[in-house]
């Protein structure tokens, strides 16, 4: 062997070792197992004595100690080979010697690398380096699998982080909105802990109480802000609120820093943590001092007005009683019977109004009254002046219908006229008779019926041709009530008056 050939051999060996070294050093750049194996298979053709190399990673990863047959069962070449150099038909060009190496790391087995050798003696010096290459390949394949997992986890994490950021931003915006509301609200926003100590309140509370939150944070709400007489009572209200029995619209006084008492209307809500434990109470308060003052003034004025009205009704009733007495005296002094009867009729009409004002001034409500209160005594008073009062039976079926004074006054006169007519004319020449007075309401309309079983009004008398003053007056007052009046003649006479409430 010449010196030149020795030198050439040396250079070739150096070049081959450099190639193997570079190959191991560049494999990490290949991002996929496919790229890695293809690159390595091409590069391995430069190894002396190697015709080709085949890397099989088709089988699933196995345990590090798996047998070669087990890790290579997915590969036809691998099945024919072993981890020793064997002569075997491999289906590749020219057949040849096969040398397979498991691609193993400390954590797992990932397939096999099979070399087809065309010159085993040339290959032998590189066998150890090729084993190293197999180890490096296995590590890169393993890393590639981990990298995929890490990338997938990173993608999930990126999505999760983005979602968290979005939620965080939304929460921040919501918090900012809520804080802005609390800061600018023209209402007290107060937070107490479960013991009733002040956690926070808003600038509006600072402005109306005169205290800054820094001054009072942590102090007992009840002893600092509530008037002494109501402290214990409000403590009980607070205990209820903490127990989820909430306050809605309760008005209580609080004492400001300068000693003024102001009325606050409270609405509250129990605050709980995620586990459902009570962590405090949120109370929203509105300063209603001025509103309450105005309400009290109005109530006092109303009371005063009621007293005055009662007094007026009393005086009207007294004046009417005096006039009724005067009319009686004057009727008794008259020799003309027609004139005396006219005065008696006027007296009857006045009486119906006197009864009304008498009942009004005795009642709590001075503006309205039930027909059941007004009509029975009126009917009794009307009947009482007639000599046949004992022989005429009067039956009353009066429902509890509340009407205002504006309707009661004309209604009283109408009842007076119709009842007086019946008492006076219906039972002439008879020993007995009966009258039924009924009042009922349906669909916002009142029906008043006065019927008797007497001789009946003459056919010549109707509402368009009333004849006497009495029925004329009834017609006018019916119109005043915006009502209708009908006369029915069957067995006796039946007057039916209808009007709206």
């Amino acid at each position: 062997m010449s010196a030149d050939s020795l030198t050439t051999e040396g250079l070739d060996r150096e070049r081959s070792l450099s190639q193997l070294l570079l190959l191991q050093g560049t494999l990490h750049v290949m991002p996929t197992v496919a790229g890695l194996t293809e690159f390595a298979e091409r590069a391995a053709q430069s190894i002396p004595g190697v015709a080709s190399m085949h890397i099989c990673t088709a089988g699933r990863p196995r345990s590090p100690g798996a047998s070669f047959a087990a890790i290579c069962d997915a590969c036809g070449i691998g099945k024919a080979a072993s981890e020793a150099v064997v002569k075997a038909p491999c289906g590749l060009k020219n057949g040849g010697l096969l040398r397979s190496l498991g691609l193993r790391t400390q954590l797992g087995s990932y397939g096999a690398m099979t070399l087809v050798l065309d010159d085993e003696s040339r290959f032998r010096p590189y066998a150890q380096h090729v084993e190293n290459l197999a180890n490096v390949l296995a590590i890169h394949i393993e890393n590639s699998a981990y990298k995929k997992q890490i990338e997938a986890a990173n993608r999930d994490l990126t999505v999760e982080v983005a979602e968290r950021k979005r939620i965080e931003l939304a929460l921040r915006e919501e918090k900012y909105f809520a804080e802005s509301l609390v800061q600018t609200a023209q209402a007290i926003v107060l937070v107490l802990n479960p013991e009733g100590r002040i956690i926070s309140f808003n600038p509006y509370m600072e402005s109306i109480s005169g205290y800054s939150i820094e001054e009072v944070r942590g102090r007992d709400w009840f002893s600092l802000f509530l008037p002494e007489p109501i402290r214990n009572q409000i403590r009980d209200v607070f205990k209820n609120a903490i127990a989820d029995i909430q306050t809605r619209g309760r008005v209580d006084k609080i004492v400001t820093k300068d000693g003024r008492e102001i009325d606050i209307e409270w609405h509250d809500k129990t605050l709980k943590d995620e586990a459902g434990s009570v962590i405090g109470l949120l109370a929203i308060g509105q300063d209603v001092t001025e509103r309450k003052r105005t309400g009290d003034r109005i109530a006092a004025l109303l009371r005063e007005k009621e007293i005055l009205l009662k007094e007026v009704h009393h005086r009207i009733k007294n004046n009417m009683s005096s006039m009724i007495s005067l009319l009686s005296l004057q009727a008794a002094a008259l020799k003309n019977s027609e004139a005396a009867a006219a005065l008696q009729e006027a007296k009857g009409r006045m009486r119906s109004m006197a009864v009304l004002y008498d009942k009004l001034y005795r009642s709590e409500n001075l503006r309205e009254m039930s027909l059941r209160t007004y009509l029975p005594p009126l009917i009794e008073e009307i009947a009482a002046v007639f000599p046949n009062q004992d022989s005429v039976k009067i039956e009353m079926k009066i429902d509890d219908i509340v009407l205002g004074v504006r309707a009661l006054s004309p209604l009283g006169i109408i009842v007076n006229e119709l009842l007086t007519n019946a008492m006076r004319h219906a039972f002439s020449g008879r020993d007995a008779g009966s009258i039924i007075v009924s009042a009922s309401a349906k669909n916002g309309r009142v029906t008043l019926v006065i019927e008797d079983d007497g001789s009946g009004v003459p056919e010549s008398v109707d509402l368009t041709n009333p004849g006497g003053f009495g029925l004329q007056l009834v017609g006018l007052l019916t119109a005043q009530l915006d009502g209708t009046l009908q006369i029915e003649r069957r067995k006796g006479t039946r007057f039916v008056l209808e009007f709206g409430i």
Partner: protein
Amino acid sequence: MCYIFNDENQRREIVAAFLDSGLKEGEKVGYFVDTVTPEEMLSYLRGLGVKIPDRPAPAALSVSKAEDTYCPDGTFVPDRMLDTLRAYYASSLAEGFRGSRVSGEMSWALKGLPGSRRLVEYEAKVNDVVLEYPVTAICQYNANLFDGGTLFDVLSVHPMMVVNGQVAKNPYYIQQAQFLKKWHERG
């Protein structure tokens, strides 16, 4: 030389160092960009500390689209590109530069443009050109985009390579004629 990479940040640093070094040496520097716009690339380079010359002409640094450079009429013709390289070197000397260097992002070749399959042929031939026109060049190959076989071909035709940020002699390099013979045999 070739630079096979899969880390974008590392690539930018290496490319910036390569271009910056050329500018400092007084060379005419050309960059053929594919993944971003020329403006974005200039912005990256500035961000990585490369002092971009203000004077527009004769420009010491030009950044242009790789596609426009390699396929000016939409087709890749290896010999035309070799002429372009020769002309670039000649013009840089004529303009008073001490030499020239270029770097290109080779991912343009994956867009299916006519002739782009002849890229490896061009890469094999370019080594002969630079013997006469000594343009320093880095061809950048993204391992995330090119398959392993192509990357090994690329490695086979570049006498130098960038490994782990260092320029190293490539032991896999084989002469143009030998490579092209094998390449044609493979079809």
